[in-house]
Structures are given as C-alpha cells and as structure tokens.
C-alpha cells in the first residue's frame, strides 16, 4: 500500500492539459510551497524560542535583537503564515466556483476542508507563542468564543488547563503548533495529492 501511495505522489506521466495554469491558478501548489517555507523557517526559530511564560517574550526580543537574520526569519515566518491562509481560502473558493467538490471528488473535498480547519488552528496556536499583549488577548478572545459552542468547554479544558498564557497552556499550544498540527497538515496534504492522482488529475470537472 505504501509503495502504491508513493507512486501516486510522484506520477510517471502527467497529462499536459492537467497542467493548464488558467484553470487552477496553482493556488493549492502555492499554499503547499508556503507550508514548506513555514516548516523551514519554523525549524530555525525553534533554536531560539523558549516555551515558558516568563522567557518567551524575552527570547523573541533576543532573537530579533542579537541574532543574525533572526528578525528576518521571524517576519518571514509570520508573513508566510498570512499568505498560507489567504492562498488556502482562495483555493477553496476556486474549488467551489469550478464545482470541483462534486462526484467523484467528494472525499478530496472533505480532506481539503480538514486541511483548511487545521491551517486556521495552526495559525491560532502560533499566535499565542510570542506572548505579547496582542497574542495573549487574541487567544483569550478565541478561548471565550469556544465556550459558546457545544463541547467547547471540554475542548477548552484540554487546551487551557490553567488559564491562557500560563505554563501548561503555553506548552500545549507550543507542542500543537510545532508538532501535532503541522504533522497532521502534512499527512492530509499527501492524502490530498494522492486523491488527485486517483481521480486522474484535476480536469475536467463539469
């Protein structure tokens, strides 16, 4: 099964008309490029970030002030994350407008929706990490909003066992942001690409 999966990830033959730029605008591909860039810059940021409430903000200041290229890398990570979300939303819009969610591609539409949700959640968990005022209150707002939805209280209790921006919650957001959520996004992306191959490319839809 695994061999077949890899074969479909890297196809031997691609139909020329499937590469038509004007149809997909390459939005999904650009979003995936953003994801790779986010992984690369995030990996380097890990060398300096300290996931503890007292030292998180200090470590960011140190990174921006005393590390060669630190400010650039952090800005790149932040900017790319914005682009990532915008591109995913545009990609979703393209899929809706071209009717690409229809049979036989319903499964890939669902995988795509999961990816959209995971990307937003990844952005949300990353927002708390700098531990400045904006980060703290934005996360606080999100957590209060979560209370209003069904099961929100339970999810909140898991995400924030001790209050937004305290030891345990910051550590949980950190682990989610650097390991669990990106890992799931990567797995779902590969499944997404595999399904494109299984559906014999992206054209024609309608």
């Amino acid at each position, binding site marked *: 099964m695994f061999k077949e999966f890899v074969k479909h990830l890297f196809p031997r033959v691609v139909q020329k008309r499937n590469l038509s730029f004007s149809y997909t605008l390459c939005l999904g591909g650009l979003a995936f490029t953003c994801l790779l860039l986010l992984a690369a810059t995030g990996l380097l940021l890990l060398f*300096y970030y300290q996931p503890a409430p007292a030292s998180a903000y200090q470590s960011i200041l140190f990174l921006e002030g*005393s590390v060669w290229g630190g400010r650039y890398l952090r800005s790149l990570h932040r900017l790319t994350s914005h682009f990532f979300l915008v591109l995913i939303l545009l990609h979703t819009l393209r899929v809706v407008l071209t009717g690409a969610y229809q049979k036989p591609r319903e499964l890939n539409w669902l995988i795509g929706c999961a990816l959209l949700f995971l990307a937003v959640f990844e952005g949300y968990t990353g927002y708390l990490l700098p531990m400045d005022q904006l980060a703290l209150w934005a996360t606080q707002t999100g957590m209060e909003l979560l209370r209003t939805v069904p099961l929100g209280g339970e999810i909140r209790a898991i995400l924030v066992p001790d209050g937004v921006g305290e030891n345990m919650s910051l550590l949980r957001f950190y682990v989610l942001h650097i390991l669990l959520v990106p890992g799931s996004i990567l797995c779902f992306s590969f499944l997404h690409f595999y399904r494109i191959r299984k559906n014999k490319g992206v054209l024609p839809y309608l």
Partner: protein
Amino acid sequence: MAKPGQTRRSFLGAVISLAAGAFLIGKFLTPKTRQKKALLTVPKGDLPPDGALVYREARVALLRQGEEVYALNLVCTHLGCTVNVTPAGLVCPCHGSSFDREGKVLKGPADRPLERYRVRTEGDFYQVLV
C-alpha cells in the same frame, strides 16, 4: 559511453549552494554574546568615601559605601524618568517614587529596585560596565 546523470556544472552548483547554506545557518546559530562595554571611566580619587557621583547625561550614579563601590541606573523602574540623587536617597521627580542608597524601593509607585551596573576596578580607575 553511458552519459553520467550528473554534470560537473550541477555538482559544482550543489557544492557551492550547500557551502553557502551551511555558512548562513552557522551565522544564524551563533548569536552575538553581548560584550559588556565601559559606559564610564572614573578616577578612584574622585569618589569620596560614602559619597556619590551622579552623571545625569549617562543616567548613572556611582556610589560608595564603605569599601563597596557600585553603580545604579538612574532610570526610574516605574515610567523611566531620571531620578534625583539626594543625601537622603533617590527620588523620582515624576511620580514621587523613592529609593534608598542601594536602589531598593522605599515608596511607590515603582515596584522594582533600580537596576545595578557592574563596576570593575581597572588600575586607578573605576569602570562602569553596561
């Protein structure tokens, strides 16, 4: 003869970009460790026993108590005004915080003691290190 999959040009390109990448990442991973630099150099004779020298421009006071010599950062820990040095202690003109000679808070609104700088003895001079 079989054509090798790798040309000399692509090999050289790969070596050069790997070396450049390693150099840049190495530079990123070695942060500047802050060199302490001398803010002030004061002759030892200028500082009387149990006295103080105030440098308002540099916002530093050099104090001596018995044998101990230390420097206080005159930036108030409340909102950053320059505190006045009086014989009784240090008083902030903005909101009335007062500190004793060691920089500890006597009266608010400041809630942290004044920052201390390291003083190094260099021959016949005191050096305040920042």
